């Protein structure tokens, strides 16, 4: 037992007391929040040069009001209210010739777009301001065409569409001889507030529903799953390189002169679990402090810790033993990486379906996938963080399944380690590994 502890302590120190680990602790949030910061920065430093649009107005009535709206926008909406930085482009309109329009004109305007002289041109059909017939089936042919090189809806085209709809609606209301205020009142959307459910505090008092932003609640399960994912990535990769180093540097043989393969593996696994828990503790504490700072601390489901910790430990054991086995079987890191490709796919699978699992945590897909052991720790935590309605038997069954799978993985990895550790040269294939496991 003491020898297992000695190996575990060395593995722990080798992984934690390194610049790489400390750097990754610091850099990981930097990269995660860095992406958000970059987006904010990009938004603030977006292209704010004037954008010219040529309007081919088939109605003969819309150009004037559109120009007025553009003018208003350019006057009031280009600058950030807080620090007066320009965040949007002014829109300049240019009146095109009246209909009929031919393709030569469209070609000429398209060339101007390509020469960057104008941003876009739009054709507005004469019928755009007419009141659609209320009898018979509603047909909805395109009445406005916008030509631009920009992909998707840019700020400029979105403004144009919104403004045009506003003008078309008022024209129709006018033709229908309706009171515009009445129409606005009739069409006013209901104000819906999205809340978290009521809960009971530890003292038994009913706690009011939080009016926090639902998007925060949406991202908390994702954060919990990410925490487990990152901890697994952080422990398994160094374990792979460490065991390959032991093979390449022939350290394995020295170790085998002192301890059994089983002791080596148990020591390594305990080291992995300890590093995983250290990482989780640091991140969970850090995350909680940040959440507390922003007033979201009550949203963090601390009660899930009693599930998270055993799931985290089992996931470390399960993936750790697979990585140890593959590392022991290979002499080159690139051989190990190609052998690990299917394992990596299983590892990232929960990341691919997190959206579905958060929006429908009780759905068939999320429920059944969370019962497949390699995915269970992450998906079960995701579901449980998304809703308290997950029936208790599910995480319990999941835990038992993961426990059994982890035990099988540890047993199999032990056998591979015993054979692979002193073997040099070509990496085995999966079926050969299975044969090693069977042979014992």
């Amino acid at each position, binding site marked *: 037992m003491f020898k297992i502890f000695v190996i575990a302590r060395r593995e722990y120190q080798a992984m934690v007391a390194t610049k790489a680990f400390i750097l990754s602790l610091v850099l990981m949030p930097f990269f995660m929040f860095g992406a958000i910061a970059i987006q904010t920065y990009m938004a603030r430093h977006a292209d704010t040069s004037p954008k010219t649009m040529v309007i081919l107005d088939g109605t003969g009535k819309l150009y004037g009001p559109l120009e007025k709206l553009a003018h208003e926008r350019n006057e009031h909406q280009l600058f950030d209210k807080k620090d007066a930085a320009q965040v949007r482009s002014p829109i300049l309109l240019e009146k095109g010739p009246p209909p009929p329009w031919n393709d030569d004109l469209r070609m000429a305007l398209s060339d101007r777009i390509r020469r960057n002289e104008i941003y876009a041109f739009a054709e507005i059909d004469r019928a755009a301001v007419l009141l659609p017939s209320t009898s018979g089936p509603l047909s909805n042919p395109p009445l406005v065409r916008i030509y631009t090189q920009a992909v998707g809806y840019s700020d400029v085209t979105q403004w144009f569409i919104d403004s045009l709809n506003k003008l078309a609606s008022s024209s129709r209301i006018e033709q229908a001889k309706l009171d515009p205020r009445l129409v606005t009142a009739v069409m006013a959307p209901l104000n819906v507030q999205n809340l978290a459910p009521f809960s009971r505090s530890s003292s038994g008092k009913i706690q009011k529903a939080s009016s926090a932003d639902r998007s925060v609640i949406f991202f908390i399960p994702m954060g919990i799953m990410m925490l487990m994912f990152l901890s697994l990535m952080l422990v398994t990769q160094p374990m792979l390189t460490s065991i390959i180093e032991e093979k390449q*540097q022939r350290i394995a*043989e*020295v170790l085998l002169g002192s301890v059994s393969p089983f002791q080596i593996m148990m020591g390594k696994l305990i080291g992995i679990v300890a590093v995983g828990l250290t990482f989780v503790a640091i991140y969970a504490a850090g995350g909680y402090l940040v959440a507390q700072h922003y007033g979201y601390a009550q949203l963090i489901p601390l009660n899930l810790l009693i599930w998270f910790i055993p799931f985290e430990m089992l996931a470390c054991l399960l993936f750790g033993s697979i990585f140890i086995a593959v590392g022991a079987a290979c002499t080159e890191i690139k051989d190990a990486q190609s052998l690990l490709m299917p394992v990596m796919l299983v590892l990232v699978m929960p990341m691919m379906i997190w959206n579905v699992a958060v929006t429908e945590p009780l759905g068939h897909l999320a429920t059944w996938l969370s019962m497949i052991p390699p995915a269970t720790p992450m998906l079960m935590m995701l579901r449980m963080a998304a809703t308290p309605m997950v029936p208790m038997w599910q995480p319990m069954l999941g835990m038992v399944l993961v426990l059994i799978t982890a035990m099988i993985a540890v047993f199999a990895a032990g056998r591979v380690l015993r054979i692979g550790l002193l073997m040099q040269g070509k990496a085995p294939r999966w079926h050969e590994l299975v044969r090693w496991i069977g042979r014992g």
Partner: protein
Amino acid sequence: MNAVELEKIRKSFGGYVAVEDLDLAVPEGAINGFIGPNGSGKTTTLRMILRIFFPDQGVVRVMGVERGKAADDRIGYLPEERGLYKKMRIRDVLRFHAELKGCRDCVKAIDDWLERFGLSAWRDKRVEALSKGMAQKVQFIAAVIARPRLLILDEPFSGLDPVNMEVLKDAIVELKKNGTTILFSTHDMDVAERMCDRIFMIFRGRKVLDGTLQSIYDQYGKDTIRVRVAAANGALENLPGIIHVNDYGGYQELRLGAGGDSQMVLHELARRTRVESFELTRPSLHDIFVRIAQPGAASEERHV
């Protein structure tokens, strides 16, 4: 009593038989040399003694225990290819190895050994900063730090300069004086001749020499003539009774065949050229090794 006893050991890897029908008795408290050409099965045998490998057939008995656990704390092991964690500090790596052998209070022993090998100034340096010779000495300390009763050294002197070889040799001899049984493999026959109480040689997985140095010499007798002649070219060809000539440049060694007469050789040589020196001697361990292991030497191969 014997520290190690092997009986009828066989070990194969796939279709390749590495060790065949091997009996070996390593006496306690002696320095035992284990020689043999590359690929002859030395490392495999050492690994079976260490229980890193298990034989397909036969019995391995280490210090009287037949079915020991995988690793025995009473055995120290220095493998042929050195392996130390590059990023660890010297004192930490030594403490790690001591603790793996169950030795918990080893700080003083580490300091003493580092002092003895002139490595005290390096105790807080990382392994990657060491030269090859230094790393080898650290690896040796790792093997002996837990005061083993049996010390197995696979090529302990390879790559060491004469000064460091001397330091290591002294350490090994002192360990022997303190009762440690030493079994080391080597390609350096001079070292084996000078240090070993007993020599084992295996070739193609089978034992071909086993005994004290004297008994091995006795086995081969005085069948070697060491000469220095004025004109070696041509003068040594077709000498009566000589079956092999080995020219070392400065001197030549002639091997007498069965029934060969050294006086006749001397007479014939004196007739052909000027003889500067002529000595009838026993073959060196090096010669014996080469006779057994050189290509086409099957006639010399006697299984013992």
